[in-house]
């Protein structure tokens, strides 16, 4: 069976933005990203302009997938969070329910303990947003409300016109 698409609306993004803006403010982190488990960037905040966040999202999702694989090999369900320490910048990555991943990029202006503490709270709040979006998705999956149900072959072909 092909998996149903997951749709998020403006209000979901607004709710995510409030959570991650708060996380940056509370921790002094340089930036925060929320991505899905497949590696698609959902939202970001902070001073992340200089970074390629599309690649960052894909690699972080790969990292979470590989870490989860390691956990299962060792008889654990998952290692839900992990930490990568650099010389000046560090990454804290944690799973948000089954759908999302929270990434906090911080430097010496913050600390791992503070980031971990606040990220735990942020993850729980994000999980709630995902859950609500999921409920709406389930209620909405009906051709009558679809943005894509009536796409024609011609429209698909036009995407590829050079």
């Amino acid at each position, binding site marked *: *069976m*092909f*998996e*149903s*698409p*997951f*749709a*998020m*609306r*403006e209000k*979901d*993004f*607004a709710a995510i933005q409030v959570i991650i803006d708060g996380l940056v403010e509370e921790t002094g982190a340089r930036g925060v990203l929320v991505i*899905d*488990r*497949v*590696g*698609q960037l*959902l939202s970001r905040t902070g001073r992340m302009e200089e970074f*390629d966040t*599309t*690649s960052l999202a*894909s*690699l972080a999702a*790969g990292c979470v*997938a*590989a870490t*989860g*694989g390691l956990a299962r090999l060792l008889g654990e369900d998952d290692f839900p969070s992990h930490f990568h320490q650099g010389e000046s910048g560090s990454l804290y990555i944690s799973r948000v329910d089954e759908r999302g991943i929270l990434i906090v990029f911080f430097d010496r202006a913050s600390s791992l303990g503070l980031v971990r503490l606040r990220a735990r709270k942020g993850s729980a709040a994000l999980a709630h947003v995902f859950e609500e979006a999921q409920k709406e998705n389930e209620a*909405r*999956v*009906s*051709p009558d409300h*679809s*943005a*894509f*149900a*009536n*796409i024609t*072959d011609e*429209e*698909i*072909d*036009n*995407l*590829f016109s050079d």
Partner: protein
Amino acid sequence: MSFINYAAREINCKIVYYGPGLCGKTTNLQYVYQKTNPDLKGKMISLATETERTLFFDFLPLALGEIRGFKARFHLYTVPGQVFYDASRKLILKGVDGAVFVADSQPAREEANIESLENLQSNLVEHGLELSSLPWVMQYNKRDLPDAMPVEEMRKLLNPTGVPEFSACATSGEGVFETLKGVAKGVLSSLRKLGV
């Protein structure tokens, strides 16, 4: 699992290039990367060994254009083809929306092609998916080789159900974009059927 962002008016889909070791999966992505307008592509990431064999995955984000006012973004991934990287292949299939099976046309790789296709099927099952319900296409690669197996023979072995198929030579680029268009079309058509 495709992701529809109604706030940014974007639709994101994940396409995975699968196939036996050295069949040309990375070469497909490299060609797409080289020939795509810089405005439409992101950076190509290759997690490879020192000998240029894929270790975890290659990743290439592409923006194809707009459909119904939504930007269509495709994330292309390859899997490592070598048999012993099976755990990594399983992980990369998570959330796949469409697949390209890159078959190697050399007669010596006949068995490896079959094994890899069976491996794709069994790894999809672990994600609760079935190949028969996933949009996917077959690419017969390395058609330029003098000893390439006849396409009819490869079809009988690898594509008995008749999914869209393409002959290619990924090093010269022949058939590469046709393959990509084929799978992208399959993915978008499946969204239409699901009606989100």
